[in-house]
């Protein structure tokens, strides 16, 4: 039943995988969306990462690095994707951009933050998402991205400065 033809893993492994996906998928998708700004690409990134995780499950589970494995899969895939200009040009017509903001974030705030986030260079956006959405340390972020801790610090500094600037400008424009 668990042979080559079925592709299935042992029931206990499948149950653990399903539990992991059920617990993490929403956050993974949202992080992917913050990284790429596109609903379809975000779903692609998550699907690919979770499929790879299933294939590699026993090895990754033994290493106790499930979260890191999936996170790096998503980030690496987004890096590969973002370097291709012809993949970047999908229209940003996702309904979320036009949808009412949820509680705690006004529509204007949401638009401004999206615009500011999208204005960041891809590397800066990755650092911001890893550090300030996923809550990673400088060292963990450096390991995930394959860059030095110093680069993480400088990119974080630059990104936050640019975010503040963008948000300040749009805030002034709104107030004018």
């Amino acid at each position, binding site marked *: 039943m668990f*042979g080559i033809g079925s592709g299935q893993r042992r029931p206990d492994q499948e149950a653990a995988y399903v539990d992991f996906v059920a617990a993490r998928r929403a956050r993974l998708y949202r992080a992917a969306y913050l990284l790429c700004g596109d609903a379809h690409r975000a779903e692609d990134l998550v699907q690919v990462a979770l499929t790879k995780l299933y294939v590699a499950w026993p090895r990754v589970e033994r290493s106790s690095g499930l979260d890191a494995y999936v996170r790096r899969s998503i980030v690496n895939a987004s890096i590969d994707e973002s*370097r291709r200009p012809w993949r*970047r040009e999908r229209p940003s017509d996702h309904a979320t951009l036009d949808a009412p903001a949820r509680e705690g974030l006004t529509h204007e705030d949401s638009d401004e933050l999206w615009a500011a986030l999208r204005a960041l*260079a891809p590397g800066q956006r990755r650092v911001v998402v890893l550090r300030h959405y996923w809550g990673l340390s400088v060292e963990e972020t450096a390991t995930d991205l394959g860059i030095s801790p110093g680069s993480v610090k400088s990119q974080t500094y630059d990104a936050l400065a640019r975010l503040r600037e963008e948000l300040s400008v749009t805030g002034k424009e709104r107030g004018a």
Partner: protein
Amino acid sequence: MIEIDEELGRLADSVELPATTPDDDLARGRAARRTRNLAAVGASAVGVAMVVTGVAMLSGGTGDRAVEPGPAGGGTTSPSPSANASHHPRKAHHTRTSKAPADPFAPMAPAGQRVVRETLNSFHDVLTDDLDPGGTRLAPFSNLQSGGGGLGTKFDWSGGGMLEIDLQPTAPKYWSFAEPGFPLTPRHVAGARMAKAGSDPTSTTVVVVRNDGTAVQLTASSEFGNNGTSIAATGLTVEQLLAAAADPRLTLPDPVPLGEPGPGLFR
């Protein structure tokens, strides 16, 4: 920076989730594992067939014809009864044809692996000629990045980052570069109907649509690979990258093989 953390969290929470369940991911995982296993079995069967053929030839061709293998890579489509797709009728994509829709996890045939390997090696040779004549910095190809009908890969750039190439048979229809992270501005390149280039402190990207219609993207980045600190660390200029992207020796096979090449790509 608590504010940023909180605002990002609220922004992320405002993103609507797609309608999918863990069972969908489970099905994709099973399908990927199944096709990967079948690819491994198929490769093993081809290897066994080649050994059997060799033994038969060495023994004067008098071997048992009942075990005579079919064409290399063309037989062994049913390596085991359990491989029958009837257990998962929706995911029977391990027996594909050239007209089958692209499945990123379907195994690539050995012949396709060879074609891709030769193509990526040819990219390496051309880029070495154009960008690394001393042959000291550009490492062999490291992966396959396919999609959109084209082929691409990444090369480690010794001493300062990486070089990525992507060839597409035709220029994409959308070509506005609205969100590359940095602006790409038009450039003039001989032999190209269109060219653009742009940089940020760690990366330079050029895109060229040659007169034959082939679209070539090259990105040199010091941000990944060896922890470079600036694009100057790669020693590559926009002009060099544009000229390399326009090199007519960079070509795609016809047709471009589809599927997941697996480790066989590197053999």
